[in-house]
Each structure stands twice: as C-alpha cells, then as structure tokens.
C-alpha cells in the first residue's frame, strides 16, 4: 500500500520528479567521473611505468612515486655504478619533463641503447627509431588523439621536433626524445630523473634492492612489482583533497535539490498530511512516506547517473583518446550510497516538519 502511494506521489508531479532525479543523477555522475578520471589517469600512468619492463626504479631522495614530478637531480654516473651491481642486467637512465602545450604529456629523454636493453625495445607502428637530435617518437594513443603522423613537426617545450616514428603505447611516456637533447633544453647536463634497473632474474629483485639501498642511502628505491598498488590519490599531493571537494560539491547539490523538492512537496501536501493524521497515521508513518519517496527519487537518480557516467565516458574517450576513465563497481556503489545518504539528510527536515504538523491546521490548509 505504502509503496503504491509513494509511486503515485512521485508520478503525480512528473516535472518535479524529473528535475530531482536529474539533479541526483548529476551528483552521481560527478562523483563517478571525477573519481574515474583521477583513478584512470593514475592507473594508466602506473601501467605505463610498469610497461617499461624494469624490476626496480631508482629516484632521488624524497622523490614522488609519480616519476614526472622528480625533476633531474641525479648524476648520470650513478647508472654506471648500478650497472656493476650483482644480478643487474641493464640500467636505463631517463630524464623526464612535461609538455604542457595542448594537454599534459610526459616526455622521456632516453638513451635508445640502454632503454631498449631494459624495455626490450619499442614496437614500431610507423617510421623508425630516434637517430637525430631533433627526432621525437610518439605513441599510438598520442598520435590518434592529436592526429599526428610521421613526418610532421611538433613544437614541444619551446623546441621543434620531427616526428620520426609512432610506437606502441605503454613504455612509460607518450613522447620520447634523445636524452642529450632534453638535457640541453633543461640545462641538466649529465643528469637523470630516474634509473630503470633490469635484473637478470626477477627473484633477485629484493637482493638488488638491498644492494642499491646500501649504495645510495636515502634514495627512493622502488621495486616495480607492486607499483600499481602505490599509485593512489593519497600519493599525489592535493589529489585526495580535490576528490573530496568534488564529492562534497556533488553531495551539496543532491542535498539542496532533495531538500527543496521534499520541502515543496510537504508544503503542497499539507492537507494530505492532515488527512493521514486524521486517519491515525503516526509521525513515523509520515516520515516513512517522505523518506521512502526520497529513496525512490535517489534510486532513480543513481540509475540514471550510472548510465550517464558510462555515456560520458564513451563520449570523452571518443573526443580525447588519451584520457582514461576508470569506472569501478566499488565507486558506482559509493556514488549511489553518497546520493542516497545525501538525499536522506536533505529530506530529513521536511519529513520532520511533516510529521509535526498540527492535524487541524493541516486539514484547514488551502
């Protein structure tokens, strides 16, 4: 009976129901997309780093797990010392920087010979490997996203590069140039941001890690086996706070819309509340009706929001192929739960008002 009444109430004002459901859907979509975007970028970045194929990553003291933030404070000569350690098969120094023109892209300055010895070499889609100082390799996702082809010129970090090849994605960055060129551009001669270390056998990773720790105390020595698990928003300064703020804004939207919607509903249905009271409906019964109606609206909003999130992800990925949006069942549930709890808080006051209405005044309401 109560279910029938709630459904009828929701259908009675279709426009208000639609607006409320859409507002909750926006809330859910905002949460899913913001979290999905950050998680997707982190995961994608982690996979690319793992894709280098190294066993250990060596960074300067206190360096971030995000290698792009590391700068270039390490002498490149460290690479020779690392190469002479037991069980070490190859060491690839890499200098990193960001390209901020038309997006945010990580650039690796590499020594092709050592980089290939660690990664196993690029899978070429088109063109050839780096040979000249102004050569640049781009990965297939970058090529597709920016519609760049071999033979074009790219103006990056104040420098004109010739695109000489398109490579399979997943080798740490999307753009690769020769290390000396990048060192010149950054004024970081004989410096590297990170060393990728490949061992002769992966079982030797703990031993090699210890060796490097002895050799370079205070440096960040990260085995890459569990790298993806370390790439969380809490490891990127400000990202966790950003996500929380966005979720807070989303919850505020849902809270206010539900509050207004249910408050208007309660005012509009004052006489009906009086009738229910005259029939002997308790305060709890009236609160139950208001909150159940809210739950139904939130549920509708959550379902629409999840569908919208998938639709938006498809559109975004089509428009920006370099983007990665990770939608997980866990965050779908969280987003729905956040919308539901926010909605319940929004409806709590109107429900309380409704339950406390004086039946005589309510029945006289015009």
């Amino acid at each position, binding site marked *: 009976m*109560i279910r029938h009444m709630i459904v009828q109430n929701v259908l009675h004002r279709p426009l208000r129901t639609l607006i409320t459901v859409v507002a909750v859907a926006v809330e859910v979509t905002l949460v899913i997309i913001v979290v999905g975007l950050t998680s997707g970028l982190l995961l994608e970045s982690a996979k690319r780093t793992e894709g280098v194929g190294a066993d250990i990553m060596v960074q300067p003291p206190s360096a971030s797990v995000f290698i792009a933030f590391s700068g270039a404070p390490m002498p490149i000569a460290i690479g020779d010392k690392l190469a002479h350690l037991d069980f070490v098969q190859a060491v690839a120094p890499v200098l990193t920087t960001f390209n901020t023109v038309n997006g945010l892209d990580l650039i690796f300055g590499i020594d092709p010979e050592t980089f290939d010895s660690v990664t196993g070499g690029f899978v070429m889609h088109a063109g050839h490997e780096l040979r000249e100082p102004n050569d640049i390799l781009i990965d297939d996702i970058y090529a597709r996203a920016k519609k760049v082809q071999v033979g074009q010129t790219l103006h990056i970090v104040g420098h004109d590069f010739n695109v000489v090849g398109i490579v399979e994605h997943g080798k740490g960055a999307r753009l690769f140039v020769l290390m000396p060129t990048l060192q010149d551009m950054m004024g970081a001669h004989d410096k590297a941001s990170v060393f990728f270390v490949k061992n002769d056998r992966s079982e030797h990773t703990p031993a090699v890690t210890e060796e490097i720790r002895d050799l370079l105390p205070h440096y960040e020595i990260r085995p890459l086996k569990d790298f993806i698990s370390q790439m969380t928003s809490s490891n990127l300064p400000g990202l966790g706070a950003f996500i929380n703020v966005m979720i807070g804004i989303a919850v505020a939207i849902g809270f206010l819309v539900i509050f207004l919607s249910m408050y208007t509903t309660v005012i509009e249905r004052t006489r*009906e509340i009086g009738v229910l009271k005259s029939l002997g409906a308790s*305060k709890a019964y009236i609160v139950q009706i208001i909150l159940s109606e809210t739950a139904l609206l939130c549920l509708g909003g959550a379902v629409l929001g999840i569908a919208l999130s998938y639709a938006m992800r498809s559109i975004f990925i089509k428009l920006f192929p370099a983007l990665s949006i990770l939608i997980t069942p866990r965050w779908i549930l969280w987003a729905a739960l956040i919308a539901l709890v926010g909605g319940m808080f929004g409806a709590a006051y109107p429900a309380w008002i409704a339950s406390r209405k004086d039946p005589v005044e309510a029945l006289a309401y015009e």
Partner: protein
Amino acid sequence: MEPILKTENLWKVYRQGKVDVPALRGVSMEVMPGEFVSIMGPSGCGKSTMLHVIGGLAQATRGRVFLDGNDLTTMSDSERTLLRRHKVGFVFQKFNLLPTLDAYHNITLAQHIHGNGFDPHRFEVVAQLLGLTGRLKHKPSELSGGEQQRVALARAIVGEPKIVLADEPTGNLDTKSSEAVLNLLRSLNKDLGQTIVMITHNPEAAEYGNRVLHMRDGEVVDGESIH
C-alpha cells in the same frame, strides 16, 4: 449503558496575538452507542472545534472528553493518534481524499494505517453498501462530489470505528447527492448500529439524526430528540 462519548465542562481556548478566544465554553454532553447525533449551529459557534476535540485531533484547554472510556484530555499526542486510528472515523466537508490514489486505495489506506492488514470481506461489504463497486478504479478527480463523499464515508467506516464524526458532510454537495449521503449515514446507523456525530448548519440534514444538539457561542444551548 455507558455513553460512547462524554464531555464534561469542555473548554477550548485559542490564543490570537495577545487575546484569548474561547471556541468552546464548558460543553457537557453525552452520546450513547448506536446514536446518530446532529450538532447544529451558526458559523463560528464552535461546532468544528467540538468535532476536532472529541475526535482527538485537537487537545482541550480544560474539562474532560471520554471516548469509549478513554480520557482524551490526559492522553499524549501519540496516544490520541492511536485512538483515532482504532476508534474514530472522520468524514469532512471537502471529502479530503488523496488525489494521487484511486477510490480503492483511498479506502484501503485506512485499513493499512489501521494496521490489521487488508480485510477483503469488510472492504466488499462497505463498497457494496456505499454503491462504489463500479467506481473503485477512479481517482477523485474522475468522481462526482457525491461519489467522492461516498468514498470518504467508506474510508471512515472500513476500519469499524466506534464512532463516525462527520463535519458538514453535505456542505459541498448538491441536493440530490446530499440526500444520498444523508440516507447512507442513516442506514449505516440503523442497519449497522454505527454511532455517528454529524455537524451541520442545515436543519433538514440535522433531522436525519435521532437527536439534535444546538450550539451557540461555544455552548450547547439545547437538545431535542427527533425519533
């Protein structure tokens, strides 16, 4: 026999700004089980206030109200809610049906709130008695005034209340529909023994009851037995 409803020196005073406005001034009356009592009086004489207080919708300022042996004046709001649920059926001038529900659900809503679940036999008896069997799927906006009031009457009696309190039940109806509703009230009283207290300002409507109480300025000024 004990009265089903009894008031003793009943006062209801409303506060308007800094002024106390008495709506009931020491009303004492009794209604016996199975009676159909009409309360008549001009507008503003306190009839509706009287109905709200004896039905437990409003709390008395002074005096006593006994409904089926329960003193409403000592009850909390939730206790009076329970009492209304199980012992009182209201019929209003403006029908007060829920516009989103059809006639069937408007009636069964009362059973649902009553808490004893849906009683199909009782529902069938009431729907047939009030001639509603063919109109149950219609929403209030699709029913005439007379039909709406019959639905409201069905809702009031489906829970088998001890007393039905009707506030100007024919006030919004044309003559023919009024007569039909009043005849239904009378047959409910005569055939089922339903106790009814009806407020009206219409002398012809009042005569459908077996006793008429006259109110003026918040007091019962006299009473007369009709049948």
